[in-house]
């Protein structure tokens, strides 16, 4: 058995293991989605007068978001949640564009609404999303905190559905909704992101929740109990993935998180490769930080179900990364005639079957959405496999290198904001950092 054989064997076992884990989650996710659509859709159709809706603080961290912030705040003002029972706090975090003016205009036009804007400077603010959220927390009055990113346009019923669910069980620490890609038709990249979002964020969350009552807060479109945030002392300002970090802490406290796909928000995704690469590198760095910080809990029986989540993240980042690198390297070397696999029974059929399953697996996640199950997307899934997944490998490798550099040179964690695009003019894209 040569080294190429060993690496191939490892790649085959790892990829197929992850594949079946994903299939398992998709089966659970699909069942959960159907169940929710069947039983909850009617129930959550409109506000229930019998419910005593709690006070909610909707927080929106914004740094140079003048292109998108107006649409976001207007969508937040358009919630069907009782207007006197929620406040909106936008943290205009050390912006150098005219975000402040845009927000002021909205405030003027909606004088009766509880819309607060905190403008921070480079001393108080500009230190990342966690810091901005902590500032907003200090003046918030709600017993429930809702978080939305500045590029979101949530559906009118999103907040109400999230809060109604949160109120149904005291052990629920947070409820997260579904996010969709608002600009999916903008470029090939956004089409990929749209499919990835549905398949690997939405369906996986649903599957993990269905089987294990496990979810990870996605960073936007979620509600969380104020008491929990107070108890944990606010958001961890060192974590780039503050959402993943807070999810783990919440499970350790004995709460659980619910996924509610009926609460939908639409967000803008990077339209250009450079922005996408930057954003995903930040996510990967954040997740690696959280993974390293929490990996010890895998062996701690008192850590509860989060152990499984940490393990899941570990599997995704370690197994998938290494196995993809191994298989791709062997494939390239094989094509160049520099190495060959001599495993008995090894054939391309294994890879063909893997591709078939990948295609079917992603297709069922698209099938539950409107206008997503199409031949075009079926083709895109195949294309993704050979392009987008390779880009993911590059992202994670880059994140690992950057994390090591940060650790070696003791660099301070900086929130690298994602560039926004103006979607108002069809056919043209204006970018703004």
């Amino acid at each position, binding site marked *: *058995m040569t080294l190429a054989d*060993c690496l191939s064997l490892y790649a085959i076992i790892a990829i197929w293991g992850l594949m079946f884990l994903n299939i398992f989650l998709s089966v659970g996710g699909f069942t959960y989605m159907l169940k929710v659509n069947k039983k909850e859709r009617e129930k959550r159709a409109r506000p229930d007068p019998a419910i005593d809706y709690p006070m909610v603080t909707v927080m929106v961290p914004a740094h140079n978001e003048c292109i998108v912030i107006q649409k976001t705040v207007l969508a937040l003002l358009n919630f069907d949640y009782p207007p006197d029972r929620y406040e909106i706090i936008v943290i205009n975090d050390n912006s150098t564009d005219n975000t402040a003016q845009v927000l002021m205009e909205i405030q003027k036009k909606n004088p009766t609404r509880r819309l607060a804007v905190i403008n921070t400077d480079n001393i108080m603010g500009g230190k990342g999303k966690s810091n901005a959220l902590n500032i907003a927390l200090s003046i918030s009055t709600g017993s429930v905190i809702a978080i939305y990113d500045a590029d979101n346009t949530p559906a009118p019923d999103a907040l109400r559905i999230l809060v109604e669910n949160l109120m149904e069980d005291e052990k629920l620490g947070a409820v997260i909704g579904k996010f969709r890609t608002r600009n999916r038709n903008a470029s090939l990249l956004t089409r990929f992101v749209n499919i990835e979002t549905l398949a690997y964020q939405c369906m996986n969350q649903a599957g993990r929740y269905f089987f294990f009552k496990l979810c990870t807060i996605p960073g936007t479109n979620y509600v969380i109990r104020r008491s929990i945030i107070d108890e944990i002392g606010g958001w961890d300002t060192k974590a780039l993935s503050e959402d993943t970090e807070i999810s783990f802490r919440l499970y350790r406290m004995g709460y659980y998180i619910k996924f509610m796909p009926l609460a939908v928000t639409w967000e803008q995704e990077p339209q250009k490769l450079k922005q996408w690469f930057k954003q995903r590198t930040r996510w990967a760095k954040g997740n690696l930080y959280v993974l390293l910080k929490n990996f010890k809990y895998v062996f701690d029986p008192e850590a509860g179900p989060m152990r499984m989540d940490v393990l899941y993240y570990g599997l995704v980042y370690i197994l998938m990364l290494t196995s993809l690198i191994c298989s791709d390297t062997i494939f390239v070397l094989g094509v160049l005639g520099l190495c060959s696999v001599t495993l008995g029974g090894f054939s391309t059929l294994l890879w063909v079957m893997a591709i078939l399953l990948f295609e079917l697996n992603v297709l069922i996640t698209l099938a539950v959405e409107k*206008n997503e199950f199409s031949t075009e997307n079926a083709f895109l899934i195949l294309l993704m496999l050979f392009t987008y997944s390779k880009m993911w490998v590059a992202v994670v490798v880059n994140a690992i290198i950057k994390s090591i550099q940060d650790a070696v040179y003791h660099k301070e964690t900086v929130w690298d904001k994602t560039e926004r695009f103006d979607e108002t003019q069809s056919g043209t894209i204006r970018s703004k950092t």
Partner: protein
Amino acid sequence: MNFSTMCKRAAALLLALFLFTAWPVPGRAAEAPLPDAQVLIVYSDEASEGMVEDAYRVAELLTYEGISAVFAPASRCRGELSRYGHIVFCRVETYPRSILQEMSDLEKAPQTAGGAGRPAFLFLGNPFLKDYLDSTGRGERYTAFGEATGVLAYEFPGLESSRALTRLDELIFLKGERDYEAGTLAAGQETGYFCCRQGTITHICADGLDEPLVLSAFSGELARWASDGAERSFRARYLVLDKIYPFQDPEQLYETVKALAERGTPYTISVMPVYTHGDYPAMQRFCEVLRYAQSRGAAIVLHAPLDQMTDLSVDALNQAVSQAVSAYVQQGVYPLGLQVPENWLMNSDTAEVMSRFRTILVSTDRDERIAADWEEKGGNRILGGEHDWIAPAAALDELDDGYAIAASTATYLDIRQSQFGFSRRVEACEQSAIPLQSLWDSAHSFYTNSDTMTYGRGELTVNGRRVSTVFVPTEYDEAFSYGRNQLQRFSWDLTEGSRKLITAVSAVSVVFLVFLFLARQSNRRRFLYEKEDKEEYWANKR
């Protein structure tokens, strides 16, 4: 239900009714005509496995003669007999009565100048010939003896008469004047012929093809009949050292090679394929002996891949053969042909693999992984007509000193048997009336994915370059690096895992397809009747 829905349902119902009534009923379609061939072999309806095997055996013997043959059960041959010039009725027991009339009509047909119009019938076995003669009012033209065991005596051209016991099923002998007669068959007090011809009818009364003498005698008579009575002479006979494995101790092979070279016995070495590590010292030593043998007159053939393969597709087999040929060619060992198990002739995939080699040696081994599909694919025509076949010799005595006189034959020897036994068998072959020949005396060629070879008139060309078989000793690298490490001590076979994976993938795929259907149904209910169209939907979301 509104009017529109009612109309749609009515239309759907009408469409369903139309499809139901207009859909062609499977199985009613007329069967395709049998393929063209020089010989049609008719076997019994509801034939036992042995009967079908005998039909295949007849086709195999015709293959060695380069004669195209198709075969089918009797009922499948109705209306088809007139298309063939030679028809073998192989142990037919169950058949449609109409076929007798068809045969009778053909027998009465006027013979044209070119010989067309009246086919030659060969009856292997007795009951069907008896039925045929009875049905055409010729009951007095034979003598019947019932079940019997007889002694076959058959004299091959140039040889002493051979004798063997054989089973005889409802034995009959044709009476009257015979156009041709060969061999004798003694059953009880009666003695008759083994094979005779009366007009269009040729009768072979012993049908036990498992008996080597019957098989040998039959092969000769079959070849003679199929070539319209042309006299047959012996063809070549080859001595083959069978299944010589690479990496085995070369000492024994060297001793055998040396002994055969000293005796001046022409022989062939059939080497087993090797796919990797062709440069290992053990392989070099093995090939050095082969090169020595080659330089002393031995011919080399490659044995077909057997047990090491799991993927039996044409591409995989071709790749394996190519790798094996390359491994030997790189060591200066030049295979002249391919040795295959008997049933490789009966499968269209293996036929395609063999098509790359002109010289094919057939052994009596069977490859259990290969299923016969030649009946559906056009009989022995799947093998093409470009091969020089070397058939396995039928064993006539305890020394395997046998032959199938109609074709070139090979006698396979195992060098792992005792030295005494091996020497006796070699001597028997040498003393046989059929002289041993060398493969170097005839032309050969092949191509693989990576190599080509042609041999003729003493010139051996490999990959476009003329090569010599003069022996040059190997210079061994004493410090050969095997590239081994801890990992290489382990091996792994994914075959079983792959099978399980295919099952799991199939199951998951079915589940996912059901999910897709359910999701589409659910979405249809949720979205289809919403009044917003796609553009409005997206506009709202923005």
